[in-house]
Structure formats: structure tokens, C-alpha cells
């Protein structure tokens, strides 16, 4: 039977379309959903698929003709059931709601379903019109997550709000909840011990995955240390990193002899002039940031369906602060000279040790550098600071016999180790990057400009 095909509706605010090109001619067979015709609207150009299988009988709208949505464009012969008639999207009902029957007066009606008009809005058909309604008398608004007072207290006292139970409306954490938490700490547990004495616990129930928030009874075989908020934050961050990022690891040896010589040469002068000790850290950062310019995918973040390259290089330096590991960030490190990096690093380290870091100091890092060498480590396998692309360690500098020009030489050698996100980079980029860092460090010497 003959079926009328109509121009379908494509969007709320699109009311008409222009026929572009007929893809089928009268007499052609048409599969269901096969494109019949191209139409052009002010929002989109698209193909209209046939709603039924059959053959095209007659074209009712010619190419170039502009017709409203819902108007007939063709007739088809088909054994299928005809498609349901398209419902035109009329403008929303702007008549007053039927219950209101009082005269207009100076107060007027309250219109239903009318979007903003005029310069601030696109009229009743504006899909961006925001729906606003008064809360019903029995409906309470859901409170926002944390009030300013709660956030401030949590910041000041390093409180992990996920540990605080809320006694406010809808389970909201109130200021008093946080104050109480600060006073009494998290769920009470057996005894508190000084953190310098780590304890190996041997629980009878070997429950490796149990959340440590729940206190269990202590016995004389074990001690329990309640988690500080920082400890918990570090733990969560580590778990997040290893569970989400596929870590790969590589290391190269760096000949630091020339750099050691430079430092010996200028260290005292630098201390006199700048008042700070010149360590190898600023040199490492310099080599790092310059290599990142060559290998931008190492200064990036995995974006799920894309890789996001970070334009600025903000280097985080791992510092052992009294509360635990913190990673303050030198922002735009590529803009600083070696002296500048030395000063910035010193300032952040001091403030970290005195618990005086601000939120800005620990945010925005794009790459992390960890000086494990100062602890004596010669090789490390660091965990990436999620969501960065890689983390680099500088290990201990040791004088070692190495082969140079087919002879044994005693050189100051230092390993640099890198864990990297293998989703973003492969061995080629990461290897290239490591070699770039190595060659920069090895080329630093008495000619290297400090300022």
C-alpha cells in the first residue's frame, strides 16, 4: 500500500528543512533504514532513512525546496505497517494553568513552562531554558556536600572528610561534626603508639583486604596504629595509582663526575651569595624539564579516550614531612634557572617540613621527581603520582669503577629510575626520555650557567 513519508523532526528548535539531494529515484527499491534523501537544516545536514522497506513511488518535495518538519516528502509502496504520524512539537502551552480562573488584575498569572525570553534567553523553544521550580512543602533540598566552615576546618587540621560522620540534615557533615572529630579522632581503637615504632600485626583472621577503619580487639601479639588522615590519603593515592596505571619501569646509569666537580667548585660561593646549599636537585630538575620539552608525552595525563598533554611543566618534589610524604610543586619549572630552582626547592622543602604548605603548593603537578638517593637507595621502583605519566628517581651517587675508552676509570655514578604509564608511552619514548635526561646531566659541568 502507499505510505506517505514525512520530513522527520530533528531538534526542538528546528522547524523546517531544505531538501538537499534525493538519494533514491521513483522506481528504486528501498531497504528499511536506507537513506532516502539528504536534508539541510540550520543546525545539521543529515540523511533521512526510510522507515519502511519497499519502493519509492513519488517524490513530493523537490530538491532545494524548504518545507516544515512533518510535511510529506515522498510516497512509497510498502508491505510494512505505516510509520506512526510524527507529532509536531508545538510551542509549549503558554496559556495560564487551567486551575487559575481569577481575573488578571495587577498581579497577573503565573505561567507554566515558559522559558526565558528577550536578551537573556531564546524564547519558549529555547532548549537551554532552565527549569526552576519551588520545592514542594514536603521536599527538603539536598544540602551541598561540604559547607565552607567544614572545608576550612578540614584544611586547617588535615582532616579527611570521608572519615567524618555527618549529623546534619540528610547526613550532612556539620562544623560541629568536624570539631568533634578533631578532638577525638577517628573511630576509637586500642592503643596509640609513636609512629617511629612500626609494628607487624599477625591477626588470627588472615583478612588482607579488610578496611583498617574498623578497630578489632588487640591481643598481646600485636599493636594497632590508628591511621592519620595523611596516612590514609597516601594509602588511597597509592592504591589508585597501581590499580589504574599499568606501570612499566626502566633505569639508566648517569656519569655525574663532571657535575660533582662543578658543585665542588661553586658550592661555597653559591652558599655565600644565595644563602642556600647547592645540591644536585636543581640540576636534576633542569635536565628533567628540558627533556620533557623534547618528549611532551611524558608530561601528560591519560584521558580515557585521549592523551592530554600538559603545556606547563610543574615539577613535584617528594619531601618527607613530619606528617608523611608530601609532594610540593614547583610551578612552571621550565622558566627557572638552576639557581631559581634551588631557591624554589629549598623554600618548598622548608615549608613542607614546618607543615606550612598551602593548597596551591601541592596542586597542579605534571611530573614528580623523588630523590631516593639521599636515603641511600641505588635502585628504586617508584609508584607514579596519579594521574601523571611518569615518575623519576635520582639514586645515590657512588664512586664506581667503570669502563671508559676500554680502560677502568673511577667515576661518580648515579642511577636514574623511571616508572611510566605504559598506556601513554612505550619503551621508545620513555627510553628516549631517560637517555635525554642522562645526556643532559652528563654534559653539566663547570661551563653550565647557574643563573
Amino acid at each position, binding site marked *: 500500500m502507499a505510505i506517505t513519508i514525512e520530513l522527520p523532526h530533528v531538534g526542538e528548535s528546528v522547524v523546517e528543512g531544505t531538501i538537499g539531494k534525493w538519494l533514491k529515484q521513483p522506481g528504486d527499491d528501498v531497504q528499511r533504514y536506507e537513506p532516502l534523501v539528504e536534508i539541510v537544516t540550520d543546525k545539521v545536514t543529515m540523511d533521512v532513512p526510510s522507515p519502511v522497506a519497499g519502493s519509492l513511488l513519488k517524490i513530493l518535495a523537490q530538491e532545494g525546496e524548504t518545507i516544515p518538519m512533518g510535511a510529506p516528502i515522498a510516497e512509497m509502496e510498502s508491505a510494512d505497517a505505516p510509520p506512526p504520524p510524527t507529532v509536531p512539537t508545538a510551542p509549549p502551552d503558554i496559556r495560564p494553568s487551567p486551575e487559575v480562573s481569577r481575573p488578571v488584575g495587577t498581579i497577573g498569572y503565573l505561567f507554566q513552562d515558559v522559558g526565558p525570553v528577550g536578551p537573556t534567553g531564546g524564547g519558549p523553544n529555547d532548549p537551554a531554558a532552565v527549569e526552576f521550580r519551588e520545592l514542594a512543602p514536603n521536599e527538603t533540598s539536598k*544540602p551541598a556536600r561540604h*559547607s*565552607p*566552615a*567544614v572545608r*576550612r576546618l578540614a584544611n586547617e587540621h588535615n582532616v579527611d572528610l570521608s572519615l567524618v560522620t555527618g549529623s546534619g*540534615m540528610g547526613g*550532612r557533615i556539620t562544623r560541629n561534626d568536624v570539631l568533634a572529630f578533631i578532638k577525638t579522632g577517628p573511630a576509637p581503637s586500642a592503643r596509640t603508639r609513636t609512629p617511629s615504632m612500626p609494628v607487624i600485626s599477625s591477626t588470627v583472621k588472615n583478612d588482607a583486604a579488610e578496611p583498617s577503619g574498623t578497630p578489632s580487639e588487640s591481643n598481646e601479639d600485636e599493636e594497632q596504629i590508628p591511621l592519620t588522615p595523611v596516612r590514609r590519603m597516601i594509602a588511597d593515592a597509592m592504591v589508585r595509582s597501581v590499580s589504574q596505571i599499568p606501570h612499566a619501569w626502566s633505569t639508566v646509569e648517569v656519569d655525574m663526575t663532571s657535575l660533582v666537580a662543578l658543585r665542588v667548585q661553586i658550592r661555597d660561593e653559591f652558599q655565600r651569595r644565595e644563602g642556600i646549599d647547592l645540591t644536585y636537585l636543581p640540576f636534576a630538575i633542569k635536565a628533567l624539564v628540558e627533556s620533557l620539552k623534547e618528549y611532551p608525552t611524558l608530561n601528560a595525563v591519560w584521558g580515557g579516550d585521549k592523551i592530554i598533554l600538559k603545556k606547563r611543566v610543574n615539577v613535584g618534589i617528594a619531601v618527607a614531612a613530619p606528617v608523611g610524604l608530601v609532594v610540593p610543586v614547583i610551578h612552571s619549572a621550565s622558566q627557572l634557572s638552576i639557581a631559581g630552582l634551588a631557591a624554589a626547592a629549598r623554600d618548598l622543602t622548608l615549608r613542607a617540613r614546618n607543615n606550612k604548605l598551602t593548597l596551591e603548593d601541592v596542586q597542579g603537578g605534571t611530573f614528580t621527581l623523588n630523590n631516593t638517593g639521599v636515603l641511600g637507595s641505588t635502585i628504586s621502583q617508584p609508584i607514579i603520582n596519579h594521574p601523571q605519566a611518569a615518575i623519576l628517581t635520582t639514586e645515590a651517587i657512588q664512586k664506581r669503577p667503570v669502563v671508559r675508552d676500554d680502560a677502568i676509570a673511577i667515576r661518580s655514578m648515579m642511577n636514574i629510575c623511571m616508572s611510566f604509564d605504559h598506556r601513554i608511552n612505550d619503551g621508545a619514548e620513555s627510553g628516549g626520555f631517560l637517555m635525554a635526561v642522562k645526556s643532559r646531566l652528563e654534559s653539566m659541568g663547570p661551563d653550565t650557567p647557574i643563573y
Partner: protein
Amino acid sequence: MVVASVIEAIREALREEMRRNHDVFVLGEDVGQRGGVFLATQGLLEEFGGERVIDTPLAEASIMGIALGAAFRGMRPIPEVQFSDFVWPAVNQLIGEAARACYGTNGALNVPMVVRIPYGGGIRGGLFHSQNVEAMFFHTPGLKVIAPSTPYDAKGLLKSAIRDNNPVISLEHKKTYRLVRGEVPEEDYTLPIGLADVKRTGGAITTVSYGLMLHYCLEAAEQVSQEGIDVEVVDLRTLKPLDKKTILESVRKTGRLLIVHEDNLTGGVGAEVAAVAAAEAFDYLDAPISRLCGPDVPTMPFAETLEKAYMPDTVKVTEALRNLAAY
């Protein structure tokens, strides 16, 4: 110390200041022979004579204009607007002239004038004897606005206002005239304009109010204290200049703010207090800022049931405090 009502305290203030300074004089409708429709100026005509206590015609613009002229010449007039509802014809003299004179003449002219305005509802005054007019003067730079709630505050502030070289609008809630009694020192004392008063200390909620509502807030605070809600009540006393320091100190302490005033909600004094708290105590807020105010209705109704529905009262304040505490 004597115990006096608000109207008695006001009368005493006028008398003491008129004795103290011969430039001080009073003018207004019915202030002389009648002694004022609220008896605020009772006995003053007998003591100070007709040149210092002047009965005027029913002409607010003229009353204010004459007072303005006298102030320009160095006198210290205290014009009275019999009911706040009548102040509108005088507004041009007050806002268009008095508020601007010092600024406009670069200090050459001062306006040492106090405009006494009985205001407020809850006395079945209806459309023309109940209005709250503070918002307009609060909004005008160049004016000071005081609104005491107790006899002690009323006397001290009025005396300060009379001694002040600037134009001061003195708002007196007519329902407090006789209803509120309190201790008043017998000796000479003044209270500084621009300083709020914490009338009740507490840790959980800050309530900011003035006028008659202040007393409802105190009653409500007492009531909810038995439910474990500890309310601090701040009496603004002066609307302008606003004592931001006292308000912010309190809000930072409690984290929750309820503002109560009889004046219409939108654009009232409470809106400014809320904006200041939101801007300058943001990190201390533990709940959205609450306002309990007169509804946005063109006038206080005359019917008793409607007036009761309009006016905030102790029950409504208690309800608001409970809701805020529960947030």
C-alpha cells in the same frame, strides 16, 4: 538607676539635651501643646517655651525644610515625623538635601539634625500608621540611622545623635514605647552610634535583629535554649553605619546566621547583613544565611488576623531557629 519605658527614656534624653545646649529645639505636629501623640515631648513646652518647642502645620516637607535651614545656621533641630508613614513628603529634604549638604559643599555646611520617626506595626495601625521605612535611609550615604530597642539604648543613642554634627534618623518602634521597660542610669551618658550590642551570648546560631523584633528574638532564644540550641542575639542598635565587626565576629563563632526584621524581606537591612556575612565570613558559614522578615506585601494589613500573619513573632523566630539548627 531607674526603671523606665522607652518613651520615658526618650523624653528624658530630649529634656537633658535641651537643658545642656540652647541651640537644641524640637518641632513637629502636636509636639508642643499636646506633648506629642505618644507623649514623647510632654512637659517640654512648659519648661522651654514656644520658641524651642514648636507646633507645626501638617506639612512634613516644610517641617524638614525649616529644620534643614536651621541646621545650616548652626542650630540643632529635632524635627519629629509623627508616624513614619508620613515621612514621604519630607524625603526630598532628607535624601535630596540633608544627606548631601556636607559632601556637596565640601564640608562648608553641616546638618546637625535628628529626625525622630516612630515606626513599626503590631498596633492595629493599618496602612498609614504601621510602616517600616528604614531601608530607604539605610541605603542613603550621608545619613546615620539609629534604631534602638531598649530604654537604655534609646536614651544613650538619642543623646549621641543630638550631639552629632551629622543628620541622624532616629527610628523608634512605637510598640516598644510603653511595652519595653528597663534600667536607665540617672547620670548623663551617651552610647556610640555605630556599635551593635550582643544582648545574649551563644555558640550555635547568630541572630541579628533590631527594633521590636529584637525582643522576640530574645524570647525565642530563651525558648530554644531549653532544647539545647544555644543562640547568640545581636542587637544592631545602629543600622547605619552597620557594625560589621560585631556581626562578623559572631558569625565566625557560630557559623549560622538568622536575620530577623519586621521590614519587607526584599532589599531590607537584612539583605545587606547577609551579603556582608557571605562575603566576609564565607569560610565560616556552616549553613545558608536565613532571613525571617515581613513579607513583600505593599502594606501592613489592618485586619487583625492578617496583621498577625504579616508580623514576625516569637513563634516564627523559634521555628526559624530550630530549622537553622537542624541544617
